[in-house]
């Protein structure tokens, strides 16, 4: 029987190709879309996978995330103002390893006559190890530094005509050049291939930041908390939130474990991946309808032949099997071709559009299975139609 089916493909190449085109395209789109989806997922996972899963951020205002530490934003509240008192409270929470407050603002950086807007980040130098920054040239800030700055790699090398090096003088303008401070660059950071929350900018001490801003009360705009046990990070976030609520009762602030945000992002990406596969499946189903149509035509065309086969002893079952096998083989061949083409397409799209893509075994199995099953299902109706033909009527057909 199989032989006979193969032979009928050979004899009817154009029919086979035309009917399988829809399936091929369907499988190609499933493979390509799944691989791009998987690539996005994998890419994000890789980018953030080595991100510190033991970190919690504490920010004033109502957060955008929906982490467990979020407070309901139903009543308009004043954003909380965090200072050293809060740092101490957090530091005292059981399970907290380190606390480092940050203050970020935009300034105009002037270097040898060129001006560029950059972020300036106030830090506590004692905890600089934990900020995951590596110094390429010079040194990092120390607690005794005052008018000293460390600049990130991109600012040092890309923003100005001349590179900024340790020992150079830079000027930071606040409020449209009204007020400024001069800083001595003591270090340049290494290029960060994996930009995270605080890589690009000029790092100065909180004390220098306070003087630069010249405000009455100096508040941190985020506090990074590192947990002792990454597995307990979410529980710790709740603990921190609870302790802070004692002095910030009616104020808005947001405590969020990075891992929570990361997980929900992965979840969304996973959903996107399957939504993309769903779109691919639609084209596969359209392809299956095409197969069904072409097979109906084939059955009509071969009515006489089916009559002959019945006359020489083929049972209803034989004919049905024959045409289902025909459909299944067509599905298998088209799916394999579709997988190969889909691989090429996703490679091509990936490299041209510069998006990550990854053809996984899972997507291949999915494409193959779906292609074969859908095609065979599409063949059921025509195969039944063929099998139920009355042999005498069929023999009369020409």
């Amino acid at each position, binding site marked *: *029987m199989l*032989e*006979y089916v193969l*032979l*009928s493909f050979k*004899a*009817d190449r154009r029919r086979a190709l035309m009917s399988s085109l829809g399936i091929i395209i369907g499988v190609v789109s499933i493979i390509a879309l799944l691989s791009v989806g998987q690539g996005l997922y994998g890419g994000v996972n890789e980018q953030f996978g080595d991100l510190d899963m033991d970190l919690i951020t504490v920010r004033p205002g109502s957060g955008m995330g929906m982490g467990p530490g979020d407070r309901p934003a139903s009543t308009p509240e004043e954003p909380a103002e965090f200072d050293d008192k809060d740092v101490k409270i957090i530091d005292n929470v059981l399970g907290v390893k380190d606390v480092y407050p940050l203050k970020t603002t935009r300034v105009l950086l002037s270097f040898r006559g060129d001006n560029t807007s950059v972020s300036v980040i106030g830090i506590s130098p004692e905890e600089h190890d934990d900020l995951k920054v590596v110094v390429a040239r010079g040194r990092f800030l120390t607690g005794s530094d005052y008018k000293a700055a460390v600049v990130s790699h991109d600012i040092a090398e890309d923003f100005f005509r001349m590179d900024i090096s340790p020992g150079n003088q830079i000027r930071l303008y606040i409020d449209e050049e009204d007020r400024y401070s001069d800083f001595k660059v003591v270090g340049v950071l290494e290029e960060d291939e994996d930009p995270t929350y605080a890589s690009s900018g000029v790092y100065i001490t909180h004390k220098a930041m306070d003087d630069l801003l010249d405000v009455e009360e100096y508040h941190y705009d985020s506090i990074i908390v590192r947990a002792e046990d990454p597995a307990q990070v979410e529980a710790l976030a709740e603990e921190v939130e609870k302790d802070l609520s004692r002095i910030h009762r009616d104020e808005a602030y947001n405590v969020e474990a990075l891992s929570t945000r990361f997980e929900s992002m992965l979840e969304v990406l996973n959903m996107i991946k399957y939504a993309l596969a769903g779109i691919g499946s639609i084209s596969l189903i359209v392809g299956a309808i095409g197969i069904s149509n072409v097979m109906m035509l084939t059955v009509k065309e071969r009515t*006489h*032949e089916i*009559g*002959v*086969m*019945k*006359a*020489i*002893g*083929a*049972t*209803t*079952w*034989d004919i049905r099997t024959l045409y289902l096998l025909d459909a299944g083989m067509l599905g298998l061949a088209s799916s394999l071709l579709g997988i190969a083409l889909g691989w090429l397409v996703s490679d091509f799209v990936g490299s041209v559009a510069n998006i990550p893509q990854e053809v996984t075994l899972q997507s291949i199995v999915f494409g193959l299975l779906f292609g074969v099953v859908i095609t065979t299902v599409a063949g059921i109706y025509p195969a039944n139609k063929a099998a139920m033909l009355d*042999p*005498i009527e069929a*023999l009369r057909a020409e």
Partner: protein
Amino acid sequence: MSLVEISGLEKSYRVGEMEVPVLKGIELEIEEGEFVALMGPSGCGKSTLMNILGCLDRPSKGRVLLKGRDLSRLSDRDLARIRREEIGFVFQSFNLIGRISNLMNVELPMTIKETARNARSDRARELLESVGLGHRLDYSPSNLSGGERQRVAIARALANDPSIILADEPTGNLDERSTTEIMEIMYELNVGGRTIIMVTHDVETTKDCSRMVWMRDGMVQEVTS
């Protein structure tokens, strides 16, 4: 026991509201090894009788025993098995499959029977050689003359070594020379022991027949030897 025993066979078709009788009580026995010519004017029911004998159709009434088995009591599956193993069809219009080779056409009944590949290929080759077409194995039937096609059809009919050959006007589409060739093959098959039941219009082709059955208006009118 006769090979074929037909008694009180009636067959009618529904055309709209009307029941149109085609066979109206056929009584006929055919012994093993006979060469029976079935004759009669168009529309007398010859083909319907052949279809019932060939297990392609079922009687409306009456009994048709083939080797003692009542055809009207058999399942579709059993009828298909009889068509496959006990009956060889030869049609007026050959009914070969044009998109496969002659060899595969002859193999087809054995393919359906699930005969092993080598065995069926050998047998098909042998059969085609026996009808003088050993040099046309890989040709398509569409590249053959009418006489050659009918010889392929005969080879196919013999594939599963059936005891009965049902031939429905096997020479109806052939020229004189081909007709003679085909009838010679039929005669040899009969001599070889096969029972042949042949519908024909051409009295010339009946000279080797052991019996002639004349039909008229759905009934057997006369049997001559």
